């Protein structure tokens, strides 16, 4: 009896120390994406998420690439976010393009050396491509699209196109690997002006041996839609067109309206499939997730897959001639009418920005 009680208390105590241990020594690696010498907004949101794992979390940012743009990005990173305590730099030709094979191996290598408790990436196409592969190499289950951090191993993520929220506990060994939904972890922080390049550390890549996967995938090209409008995922206002626009020509009205509002342009799957706009503008379960202050939907019926991408917008406006369209069930302000009358009227009556 007493032995049992003793055993019980030891078991309880060792459990308690284990928990305390894990919460005391949090260390997180954030996979950093950079472009044109600066860190992508989604990676900074991942740093923000790392901060919410616990107070004493030390956050390292991993940057890989080659040449001066990598050095510039590293210099930016070091002074960009006060929570970043170290910037790890992998400078090599094999990282010139963000291919999953060398990146996943790099994460594996860095983890073996530094034993992080958490590894986080933004859940854009880069994070979703690289992180699960790295997780497989480390033999752990990753968690996709985390929208809320309730503890160092307790997370909330949407499932079924955002129609349910699943709370999951990670019970495996280190590292716990996450991709986070950027719109759920806004940074809202102005960059500090002081540079602090002391914390930049070059990764020794001599252990980066050639193996089976090396060189088996090669970058060929990228075709990007360069626009001057704000980035869809981070815009304050998003104007979206659906099938109701009827043609690519008509879709220009949406672009004009977006210009007037200083907004980003989005589209439904129907509009993309019909060829009105390129696919990277698609908003929804399989496209971009947005959470702007104002979301305006024109000729959008509101399929569940689309609603999954706009659910967290602050104010939703819907214009549709079908009064029964499901979009009206989530819209704060609805206008039932012909968008071909309403958009020109809006263009005329909206105040000039600034």
């Amino acid at each position, binding site marked *: 009896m007493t032995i049992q009680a003793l055993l019980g208390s030891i078991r309880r105590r060792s459990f308690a120390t284990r928990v305390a241990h894990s919460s005391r020594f949090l260390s997180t690696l954030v996979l950093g994406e950079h472009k044109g010498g600066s860190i992508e907004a989604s990676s900074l949101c991942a740093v923000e998420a790392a901060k919410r794992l616990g107070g004493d979390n030390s956050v390292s940012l991993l940057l890989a690439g080659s040449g001066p743009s990598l050095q510039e990005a590293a210099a930016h990173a070091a002074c960009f976010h006060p929570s970043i305590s170290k910037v790890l730099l992998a400078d090599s030709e094999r990282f010139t393009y963000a*291919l*999953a*094979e060398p990146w996943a191996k790099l994460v594996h290598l860095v983890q073996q050396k530094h034993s992080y408790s958490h590894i986080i990436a933004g859940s854009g*196409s*880069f994070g979703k*491509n*690289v992180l*699960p*592969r790295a*997780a497989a*190499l480390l*033999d*752990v*289950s*990753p968690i*996709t*699209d985390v929208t809320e951090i309730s503890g160092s191993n307790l997370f909330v*993520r*949407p*499932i*079924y*196109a*955002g*129609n*349910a929220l699943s*709370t*999951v*506990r*990670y*019970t*495996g060994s280190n590292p716990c690997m996450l991709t986070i939904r950027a719109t759920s972890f806004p940074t809202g922080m102005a960059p500090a002006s002081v540079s602090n390049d002391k914390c930049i550390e070059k990764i020794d890549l001599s252990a980066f041996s050639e193996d089976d*996967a090396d060189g*088996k*995938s*090669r*970058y*060929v090209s*990228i*075709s*990007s*839609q360069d626009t001057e409008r704000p980035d869809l*995922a981070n815009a304050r206002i998003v104007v979206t067109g659906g099938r109701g626009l009827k043609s690519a020509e008509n879709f220009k009205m949406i672009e004009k309206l977006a210009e007037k509002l200083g907004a980003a342009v989005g589209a439904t799957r129907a509009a993309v499939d019909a060829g009105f706009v390129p696919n*990277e503008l698609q908003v929804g379960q*399989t496209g*971009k997730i947005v959470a702007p202050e*104002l979301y305006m939907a024109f000729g959008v019926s509101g399929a*569940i*897959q689309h609603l999954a991408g706009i659910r967290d917008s*602050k*104010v939703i*406006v819907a214009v549709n001639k079908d009064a029964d369209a499901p979009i009206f069930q989530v*819209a*704060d*302000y*609805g*206008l039932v009418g012909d968008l071909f009358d309403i958009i020109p009227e*809006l263009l005329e*009556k*909206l*105040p000039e920005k600034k």
Partner: protein
Amino acid sequence: MKILVGVKRVVDYAVKIRVKPDKSGVETSNVKMSMNPFCEIALEEALRIRESGRAKEVVAVSVGPAQCTDTLRTGLAMGADRAIHVEYPATLYPLSVAKIFKALVDAEKPALLLLGKQAIDDDCNQTGQMIAGLLKWPQATFASKVVLDEGNKVATVDREVDGGLETLSLDLPAVITTDLRLNQPRYATLPNIMKAKSKVIKKLSPQDLNVEIRSDLEVVQVTEPPKRQAGVILSSVDQLIDRLKNEARVI
């Protein structure tokens, strides 16, 4: 060459799901189930490659409970040559599924593995990447165009990435996961549905493949997302601009 295609049985995409009152998950009994839409696209692509003469055999694989055979029959009716069902009654996370696929690949030796980019139930978007990692094969995720060069054993893949389309070139064998715009899947015709009944579905268990199922994730609860407050229907553009300016203060 041989192509292995992963197909998952999920709640039909058009069903409005209900969260169970005890918060243990989403109601799946008496709900219409179908093949995951992204898996249909992967299978369609494999069939087109076979029809172009660049592949000999298309094998559909599903991992999960007994009813997965229905999904595999659908795949066989679409045109897959044969099917493998790795039966496991409980929920499996992508890491376990990836290990099962690795074991199948070791046995079947396909030159190409096609999967959907994500299942529309768990929305994980992980399995293809994890299989590629375990096999040390190159990967191309979110594919919207796949061109095979049989002579050089190379696949050229257009990927839908943030900000545009990226083109990669992969040495085979490789793993490719499909995006929505890769193709338009065919319907199974009645004669093909009849023919599919005589095609073989091989049954295996994780034990047969020497894969140990363990889980490092635990679902604590599943809840409904917060509901949005009902909005108002306005009658004019002027009213809308006024509300946006003075009530919502967003413009």
